[in-house]
């Protein structure tokens, strides 16, 4: 195969590869943005925006929020416990007839 013959094969092949990459693995215009180049979604997933695939990040934020609430509750419980104990001591002081 001479140089001209090789080019005749390589050029169309390159064009096909680029086309596939930019349009999403062969799905021309099927779902722009879900291809493997420049995509912000998950590669190879038709339902890139489904809860199943985004859950990990969402769960992490939710769990952090829960933990913060519980930390606040714990601090308030500790302070309430201190006050309750102090009240017991005051009431038991017994210095008043």
């Amino acid at each position, binding site marked *: 195969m001479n140089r001209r013959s090789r080019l005749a094969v390589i050029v169309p092949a390159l064009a096909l590869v680029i086309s596939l990459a930019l349009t999403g693995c062969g799905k021309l215009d099927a779902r722009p943005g879900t291809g493997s180049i420049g995509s912000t979604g998950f590669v190879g997933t038709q339902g890139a925006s489904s809860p199943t695939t985004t859950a990990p990040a969402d769960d992490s934020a939710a769990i952090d929020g829960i933990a913060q609430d519980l930390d606040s509750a714990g601090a*308030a419980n500790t302070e*309430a416990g201190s006050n309750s104990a102090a009240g017991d001591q005051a009431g038991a002081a017994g210095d008043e007839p």
Partner: protein
Amino acid sequence: MFRFITVAAAAGALTLGSLVCAAPALASVPSDGTPPTAHSSLSAIQQAGAAATAKRISSLTTGIGKVNATTTLSAADKSTVLGTLNADLSGMQTLQSKIAADTSATTAWTDYRSIFTDYRVYAVGLHQSYIAAAADGLTDTAIPKLQSAAAKISALFAADPSKATPDLQAKLADMQAKTADAVTKTSGLAASALAVTPSAYNANHAVLSDDRAAVRAALADSKAAAQDGQAIVAALK
């Protein structure tokens, strides 16, 4: 008389965490020395009166400062407590001067007795302030945070049922039940405690017992609910 106007007495002496620090001093009453009697000499009664009023003035002054600095008491309860504390402080200062100037043992004895029966700085004032501070801390902060956490956990389980294992569901249910119990037990608790007066205590020395028991039970519920929540979070991570 202003005694009756003020809800409780020296409540203040403390407040929050502060209350805690003041408590030990309250318990160490021996500095009052041997209690005088109606038959004691004028000087003996004056000496005991000076010690008793000085001790209370110190506790009240410390308590007022702590109440002013606390964020646990609600604004309304803080106002009530400060009103009581300042009135008690003024009363103690007045009695301190009066007892020192008394010229008869009979009058001094009456004034000395007034330190206790008309004010009840420790048995009522401080005690009710601690209870109110604890109750407000649970009502205004701990319980709302527990309710918020439970709601978020429920939403998480609803979004992904696979996370809602039987064990975690049971913990969430217990968390919600304990929180609900705490809500019930703290309902009106601070107001109830702050409504107790020295005269009520004179008639019934156990007048604060129910409120005291309620705040302890509510605190136990709140702690248990928080533990449930922590266990759930640990399992989800």
